[in-house]
């Protein structure tokens, strides 16, 4: 019997069998940031351990940094201490740090691929759940906790058990204005927030093959929102073209050998998956979440569901609670619902292609009165490119705030927050209660949908906008 892509990569990383069903796996890349690493370094020091492979460990500052001022002090005293701790820990251990003042600083899941650190066939971990992003390159990439960060720092390995495999096939061609964000929201809507628990999800099908690397990253990024341990896409010519020439990509004499190896990374035709779902991509419409978890999602032309429409009593109760929290009523159309804040950014949707899609909707228009709109590019590279392409000017002319790179309002660890009761159209990944600030109401959408909401002051279907071009 053939093997899945996940099984191939897993087996090639087994250092040894720890016991029973637990293996020790080698980790090719360890990405760290300020929030989930300080206690790990403290643990190492306490036990007298050292970082085994600082050359395979890379750090950045993203979660609690100010996006207005490049200063450790700008986001408060405790944030400053955390940033200083990361700088000191990296200096002591010889780990490369892209700090706030580095031109390529940015969100860890944007800069990893951008620098070519992320490569097919790797095992990549980071103390952040959206590490699943890197699976877009055909790598096993997943989030870990601080104890595991400490374990990887000390040993460059991690104990793991084989996960179950889930195949998500998205067939057909996507409609214009339907983006990878809409695809993954539709998949989560179909499978539920726990539908992927215990599984590594491999995405395949024509709709996936046609996606750029930026789009594939958006897709894999939100695999965690259906509970999947990781998301995975087999590498192909699109992947190799993206990687070639990047700072950490294999160079000259190694490039051909690397590509030859990467071309062996796919699920065999006779590989058995534990679960298979198939979704017709041509039927997906622009999506908007209406509730307080990502499975509570509808197409923009659907009414907000009634709690009674859920046959599962627990889901019905969750819907009732979500509607109250979100200040919505069953049957309401989201195209009648106004927004207070628009956030374009996060590790889900802050790459150049996302900003281009948003700018195309914004060009020549103005942010609606009373709406606060901000664009937070994912990295220094994205920011520079967007400025060179004139996208930043488009946003600024329309009334958007144009910020410095960071996680920003996705989780509001810095001062970018949504106030209680305010409604935010957000390109981020979680619409949990209080996620963007206590009492905040988050609606997850694609960059084009967020941009359209900013211009119109309410949700609109981007596909219906006059003068819109795909």
């Amino acid at each position, binding site marked *: 019997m053939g093997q899945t892509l996940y099984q191939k990569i897993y087996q090639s990383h087994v250092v*040894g069998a720890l016991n029973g069903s637990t293996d020790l796996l080698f980790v090719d890349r360890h990405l760290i940031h300020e929030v989930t690493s300080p206690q790990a370094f403290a643990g190492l020091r306490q036990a007298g351990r050292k970082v085994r492979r600082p050359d395979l460990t890379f750090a950045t500052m993203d979660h609690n940094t100010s996006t207005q001022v490049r200063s450790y002090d700008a986001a408060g005293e405790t944030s400053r201490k955390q940033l200083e701790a990361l700088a000191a820990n990296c200096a002591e251990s010889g780990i490369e740090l892209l700090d706030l003042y580095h031109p390529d600083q940015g969100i860890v899941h944007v800069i990893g691929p951008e620098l070519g650190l992320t490569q097919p066939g790797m095992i990549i971990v980071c103390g952040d759940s959206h590490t699943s992003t890197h699976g877009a390159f055909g790598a096993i990439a997943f989030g870990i906790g601080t104890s*595991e960060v400490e374990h990887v720092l000390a040993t460059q390995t991690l104990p793991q058990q084989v996960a179950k495999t889930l195949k998500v096939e998205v067939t057909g061609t996507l409609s214009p204005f339907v983006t990878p964000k809409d695809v993954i929201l539709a998949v989560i809507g179909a499978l539920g927030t726990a539908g992927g628990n215990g599984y590594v999800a491999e995405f395949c099908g024509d709709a996936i093959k046609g996606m750029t690397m930026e789009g594939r990253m958006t897709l894999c990024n939100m695999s965690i929102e259906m509970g999947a341990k990781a998301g995975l896409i087999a590498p192909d010519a699109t992947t190799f073209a993206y990687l070639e020439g990047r700072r950490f990509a294999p160079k000259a004499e190694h490039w051909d050998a690397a590509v030859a190896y990467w071309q062996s990374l796919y699920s065999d035709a006779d590989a058995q998956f534990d679960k298979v779902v198939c979704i017709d991509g041509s039927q997906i419409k622009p999506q908007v979440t209406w509730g307080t978890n990502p499975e509570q999602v509808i197409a923009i032309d659907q009414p907000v569901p009634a709690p009674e429409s859920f046959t599962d009593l627990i889901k019905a109760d969750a819907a009732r609670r979500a509607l109250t929290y979100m200040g919505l009523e069953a049957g309401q159309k989201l195209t009648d619902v106004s927004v207070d804040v628009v956030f374009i950014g996060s590790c889900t949707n802050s790459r150049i292609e996302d900003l281009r899609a948003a700018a195309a909707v914004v060009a020549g228009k103005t942010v609606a009165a009373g709406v606060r709109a901000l664009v937070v590019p994912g990295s220094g590279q994205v920011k520079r490119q967007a400025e060179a392409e004139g996208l930043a000017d488009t946003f600024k002319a329309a009334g958007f705030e144009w910020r410095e790179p960071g996680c920003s309002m996705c989780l509001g660890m810095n001062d970018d927050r949504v106030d209680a009761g305010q409604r935010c159209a957000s390109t981020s990944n979680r619409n949990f209660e209080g996620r963007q600030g206590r009492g905040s109401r988050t609606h997850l959408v694609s960059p084009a949908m967020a941009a359209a909401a900013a211009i119109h002051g309410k949700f609109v279907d981007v596909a219906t906008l006059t003068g819109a071009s795909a």
Partner: protein
Amino acid sequence: MSEIFAKGLVCPLDKNNVDTDQIIPKQFLTSVSRDGFAEALFFDWRYLADGSANPEFVLNEPQYQGASVLLTRANFGCGSSREHAPWAIQQYGFNVVIAESFADIFFNNSINNGMLLISLSAANIDFLFNRCKQGPQQWHIDLANQEILLGNNAAIGFSIDADIKQRLLSGLDFIGASETFSPQIDQYEARRRAAQPWLG
């Protein structure tokens, strides 16, 4: 052999999909310490906007003070990888969480802190919630025999991965255990360098 892993008062939190932003909100994540998170647990539910205790929230009810077993529903701990979530739960006083299911990263993080997470069928979870409605519950968790002892000779069995069970019972330092594989890690690195020199 009977070995009581934990015993104590049960607090029923009747919700699905309790995410890590609810378990511990973002403003507590700027700490560089592993301690001091007990007060932050379920912050937005536990305290009203003026900082006073929310009398409606189950954790604040008088009969659940001192609880050490948390009973909840499906997909507990979904969301972020913040280990601050199990730290907050543990530092508050819970060392066992019983639910229909758990998010993967949260599960691993909890085990790595020596907490016991028990998954049960939806029917058994319903049964336990109904029991809690009859009055405060004191349960004993027998990990060796994989049973929740409900009192009066009533018990519910649970399954657990053998490796995890062994780790929890032995209290092994998981970094120390992996360090005994140093020679194998050296060999793996040498093989990797030879076969895929671009990886470093």
